[in-house]
């Protein structure tokens, strides 16, 4: 291989980490706004949840068509860049992040939100309390989204293009090694990917940013 596994792994973490952060900037606000409503149209949650399992190749294909030179956003020149993967993965994990954090926040909004309200909090003070009290659950939602992003292949392959030293990430590297018949390398890459995605979650818990807490 022309670059080391460490480089590829680091790129995977950076790209998927950026995608997860990007997705949080709209998913968490969307979740809190949904959670503050006493009722939701019945269709919202099922639709959101059905989109959690969106096929990654489909997202990859749609983005490919959008970013390709004849597509509507072709002029941006994003196709086969890390930025394209970041955008694609952030879209991919959005339904997951919204639906998991919605569940956490709607429970918290009904309890902590109402408590804040009755003690005279403004809308923003109320949101701060609800977020703070839900921190453990929200970190969980973000970690799950990162795992989904770092482990997906469709988007990275179709809009990233698996360019060595530039857009090659763990999953596309594995696919490449398999196509070359290097099963042993592919399996060890796969194990490294598994280790990355599970250790991130463990590290975050161990850092003590949040404690897994029970109930209210």
């Amino acid at each position, binding site marked *: 291989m022309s670059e080391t596994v460490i480089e590829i792994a680091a790129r995977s973490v950076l790209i998927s980490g950026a995608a997860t952060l990007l997705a949080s900037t709209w998913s968490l606000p969307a979740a809190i706004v949904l959670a503050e409503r*006493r*009722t939701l149209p019945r269709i919202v949650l099922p639709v959101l949840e059905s989109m959690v399992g969106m096929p990654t190749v489909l997202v990859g294909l749609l983005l490919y068509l959008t970013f390709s030179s004849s597509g509507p956003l072709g002029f941006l020149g994003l196709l086969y860049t890390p930025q394209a993967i970041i955008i694609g993965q952030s879209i991919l994990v959005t339904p997951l992040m919204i639906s998991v954090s919605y569940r956490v926040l709607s429970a918290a909004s009904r*309890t*902590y939100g*109402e*408590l*804040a*309200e*009755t*003690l*005279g*909090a*403004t809308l923003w*003070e109320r949101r701060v*309390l609800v977020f*703070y*009290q839900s921190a453990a659950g929200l970190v969980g939602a973000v970690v799950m989204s990162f795992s989904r992003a770092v482990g997906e292949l469709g988007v990275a392959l179709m809009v990233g293009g698996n360019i060595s030293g530039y857009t090659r990430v763990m999953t596309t590297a594995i696919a490449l090694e398999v196509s070359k018949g290097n099963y042993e390398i592919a399996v060890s890459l796969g194990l490294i990917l598994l280790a990355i995605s599970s250790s991130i979650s463990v590290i975050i818990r161990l850092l003590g940013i949040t404690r897994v*807490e029970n109930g*209210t």
Partner: protein
Amino acid sequence: MRMVLDDVWYSYPGQRGWALRGVSVSFREGELVVLLGPNGSGKTTLLKVAGLLLKPQKGRVIVEGRDYWSQPEEARQAIKKKVVYVHERPIMLKGSVERNIAYGLFLRGYREEEALEKARRLLEELGGEKLAGKDARSLSFGEAQLVSIARALAVSPHILLLDDPLSGLDLERQELLLGFLESYKENGACIVMATHDMQASRRADKVFRINMGKVLMEARS
């Protein structure tokens, strides 16, 4: 502060049927009002409507002569700061007991030390001095109930709505609380308490009985 519920109807979103069906009651300063009624009769709902947390679909909530829900947002916020509802199941925030009690004081811009000091004093007066310094999430039900009542009292509400506050307290602390509330209302506050405790209802200035969302009668004790 005076509050009147005038022919209030409330239905939970997505539910058929009314949880409150034409309730008219009034509370005034210096009063201890007790709300009696079986499970599911609408006590919590009534207290949350009076607590300005639920907006009734029909009828008016009149606070100091003005229809609360037709006022502009800033006016409502100012009134809301004086009306506090205490949940039936206590809600404990992360952190120490004192910080929980001081939460409303922090919202009102109190300095840290001042707020925590006030929290400790209040805790002592309610017989909870042993709880100081504990992690609020590790408390028993009754202990948490005491803390959540203290948290409401800390902000000196003009109208205090207590949802079954005695259920988790031992007899000694029930007595302490009732004594505290009796002297608290003398300063002009109004206290409304839902309870199943007949003993407590004897000490009320006014008793409302509620059943199936309707206030059946108002009894003077």
